[in-house]
């Protein structure tokens, strides 16, 4: 009679074996980590973002181990990240000093330094390429006439608006101890550093849906923002150890950045200015950086004194539910046994029904 609860240990062992079998069932060649890194680079970049650890090798490993379940891969990387010691905080990166791979503005036709399309699916036709079904054993590519941009300085496009005071100034209130969402529990009202970190590692699908809701009509202004500038490239990371007293470069990372220009604020006394939203991600995650910039702008609503009407403007709604490691864990916990609690409900519903049915008979 104890079948229902016995045998957990054995069942887990078998389940893990079945999972491994699923990966190896038909005896195909094992995928190399490098192949994942190179040929599934967008998946790798999504996992380093939401896993919030810039390590493309481990990201590829996580994708392999999770058999392509990216939310699971993100979880694996997070659980590894949590064991790493914190040596230092880097100084803020300077995205104007960038080895640029892509840079576009939708607000200006031409910009100093030029519009650089770079690698993008944007103008590909979404037609299945059947030639990929049987590709050469070793990947090679034709040398394209790739004009490497000579510039190393790409000042932010929207700074041109700044010069005319048309754009709100981002008040530089970043202190020496920025909020750290991996160390501090959530706080409300949330500060911008806090929400930017949560958005950077938030679920791409969730943020995409939220940002879509805002520009479709469930947003603060219900209108259409403008892409001031999108950048994808490589920037240096610096730390400034106390014992040295100066900055040293410890490496470089790929980033995607989006500067969004939004509707203006102002009144009789304050001349109107455009507002802005900002999005930054690890790796090549342009879509997500755009979504973040829209959510960022919406979360600033409270600061502008705008009425909080829609989910995207609600700090607690957005920030508590953006993390997919938390979300997937809690949603899937429903498959854990709940028979003790359900027994309580059964016990009660029978009692309530009995009381009513017997009452009626009387």
């Amino acid at each position, binding site marked *: 009679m104890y079948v229902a*609860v016995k045998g957990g240990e054995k069942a*887990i062992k078998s389940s893990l074996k079945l999972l491994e079998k699923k990966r190896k069932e038909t005896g195909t060649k094992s995928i190399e980590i490098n192949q994942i890194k190179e040929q599934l680079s967008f998946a790798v970049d999504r996992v380093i973002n939401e896993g919030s650890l810039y390590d493309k090798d481990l990201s590829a490993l996580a994708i392999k181990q999770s058999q392509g379940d990216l939310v699971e891969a993100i979880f694996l990387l997070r659980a590894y990240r949590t064991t790493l010691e914190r040596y230092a905080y880097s100084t803020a990166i300077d995205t104007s000093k960038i080895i640029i791979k892509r840079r576009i503005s939708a607000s200006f036709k031409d910009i100093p330094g030029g519009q650089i399309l770079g690698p993008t699916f944007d103008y590909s036709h979404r037609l299945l390429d059947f030639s990929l079904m049987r590709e050469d054993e070793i990947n090679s590519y034709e040398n394209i006439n790739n004009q490497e941009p000579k510039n190393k300085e790409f000042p932010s496009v929207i700074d041109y608006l700044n010069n005319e005071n048309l754009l709100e100034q981002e008040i530089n209130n970043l202190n020496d101890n920025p909020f750290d969402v991996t160390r501090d529990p*959530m706080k409300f009202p949330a500060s911008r550093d806090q929400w930017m970190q949560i958005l950077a590692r938030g679920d791409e699908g969730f943020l995409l849906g939220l940002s879509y809701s805002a520009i479709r009509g469930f947003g603060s202004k219900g209108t259409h923002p403008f892409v001031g500038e999108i950048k994808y490239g490589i920037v240096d990371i610096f730390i400034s150890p106390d014992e040295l007293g100066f900055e040293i470069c410890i490496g470089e990372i790929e980033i995607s950045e989006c500067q969004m220009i939004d509707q203006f604020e102002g009144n009789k006394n304050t001349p109107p200015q455009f507002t802005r939203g900002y999005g930054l991600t690890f790796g090549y995650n342009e879509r997500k950086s755009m979504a973040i910039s829209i959510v960022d702008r919406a979360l600033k609503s409270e600061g502008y004194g705008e009425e909080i009407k829609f989910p995207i403007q609600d700090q607690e709604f957005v920030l508590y539910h953006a993390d997919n490691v938390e979300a997937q864990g809690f949603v*899937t916990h429903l498959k854990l046994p709940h028979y003790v609690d359900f*027994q309580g409900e059964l*016990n*009660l519903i029978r009692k309530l029904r009995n009381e009513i049915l017997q009452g009626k008979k009387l």
Partner: protein
Amino acid sequence: MKTGFNFAYLDEATKRMIRRKILKAICIPGYQCPFGGREMPLAYGWGTGGIQVTASIIGKQDILKVIDQGADDTTNAVSIKNFFKRVCNIMITDRTAEASLIQTRHRIPETTLNKDQIIVYQVPQPEPLRKLEPKEKETRKLHAYKEYALMHVKLYEEISQFGSVIKTWAYPVETNNRYITDPTPIPKFDNPKMNNMEALQLFGAGREKRIYAIPPYTKVKSLDFDDHPFEIQTWDECCSICGSTKSYLDEIIINNEGKKNFICSDTDFCKSNLEKNK
């Protein structure tokens, strides 16, 4: 045995941070203390808060018991025990009386706990007012002002609609005459065990990043009204294995016609009771 991880997985600085929060929580019984919860290699909602609390206080001499729904051998309890075996290499037991540290999900053991034991609850939602007020900003204020009318009105409404309070698990309690506290989704059957318990009760909510505590010998009162006193569940049946009439029973469907049997939810209690009766 080398595991490749620090003893109990978390680094020592993190454990110290959590222990400080635990001390704070003990000083303010029932107060939800925010803490810098870490990601764990088990999923949120599957016991990460309890695991972090356990990992922070566990020592090499400890004997650990983990239960889920009262049972020692449910899959998630087994999985958590395997985790601690792997990262601590400590003694594990099924015997409530033998354990120095008990991590639980949804039950308090039937065997009375003593002053040398600590019970760690896994907490899905630490905020008892969350279903009545979704905003953290607001609920913190309500606790600070001891403004609990919302909860009393909710219980009153249930009585007026159904004739009794219809909360059968996670039945709210008042700790030390001060904070309304979520007892976690234990059946209300277990609530009276929390009152004046000799053992230290610790509560860890990983996803929500809160720790709270009920120190030994603290008054814990299930909310009720004078004319509708708090009641626990009862059964007409007894356990079909050990014959107990005093324990919380699980219902098991044993054939296609839906015939049911009742058995103790606490597997260790059931086993001991059976041995005793032999």
